[in-house]
């Protein structure tokens, strides 16, 4: 069976760590994760599919994934810009979600690939939020199924903080 992802969020810290092993060389993993044509096939949900991908994978370039609900009623974007692109080792980018009631909740995301042995690569993503409340609000809102519900929930959390 395949490897499992490990996701950790320490109480009181504003980061999320994501880690996963792949039995493939680093260069190959890098080329697949930075290939815009392949994004809709793996970068899913929750409950939504990517309908449009823009990726200008170079430093200063912009990326934008559009997702739509199954009924096509709602669509929203995940977007940001590339700060560092060091193939095949590292990508540092910003990340923002258009579905939030306010701008300014930006995440800094670092993806690193480490070849542990020939043909085995560890993929690590660190997501750094501005605050613990931002991080927990994202975790909570991101995992809610319906978008309307998400807006309401998020507004409440933001108001409470």
């Amino acid at each position, binding site marked *: 069976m395949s490897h499992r992802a490990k996701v950790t969020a320490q109480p009181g810290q504003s980061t999320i760590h994501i880690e996963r092993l792949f039995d493939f060389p680093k260069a190959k993993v890098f080329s697949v994760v930075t290939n815009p044509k392949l994004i809709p096939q793996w970068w899913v949900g929750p409950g939504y599919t990517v309908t449009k991908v823009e990726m200008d994978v170079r430093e200063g370039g912009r990326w934008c994934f559009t997702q739509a609900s199954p009924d096509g009623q709602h669509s929203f974007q995940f977007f940001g810009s590339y700060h560092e692109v060091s193939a095949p080792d590292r990508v540092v980018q910003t990340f923002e979600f258009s579905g939030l009631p306010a701008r300014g909740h930006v995440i800094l995301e670092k993806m690193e690939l480490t070849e542990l042995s020939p043909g085995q690569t560890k993929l690590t993503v660190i997501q750094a939020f501005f605050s*613990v409340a931002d991080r927990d609000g994202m975790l909570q809102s991101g995992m809610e199924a319906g978008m309307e519900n998400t807006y309401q929930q998020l507004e409440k959390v933001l108001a409470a*903080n």
Partner: protein
Amino acid sequence: MVECEAQLDRIFACLSDPIRRDMLRRLVSGSAHIGQLAQNYAISFAAVAKHLQVLELAQLISKQRQGKQVIVRIAPPALKAASDYLAQYEALWNQRFDNLEKLLQEEDS
């Protein structure tokens, strides 16, 4: 469900305060009596008690009287609601990475 959401709001509101986060961090490594806990902060004992009250309302901690002392300990069941979201986030990434692995295998063949 509504009650559960209200509870989550309280938890996230609680965690937005640095002193309350610090209190929780200390309590994770073991229970403490209020006096011990208060020594860590340059705020009044009343302010410490107030923070503890907020934490208790969100069911993040529980208090228990032991003789003259009040012992404070972390209450894991309330934290579970927050960790459930983390588990769902992990499930989402597992789904993404499993898809990615399939693509890598297809590229290979």
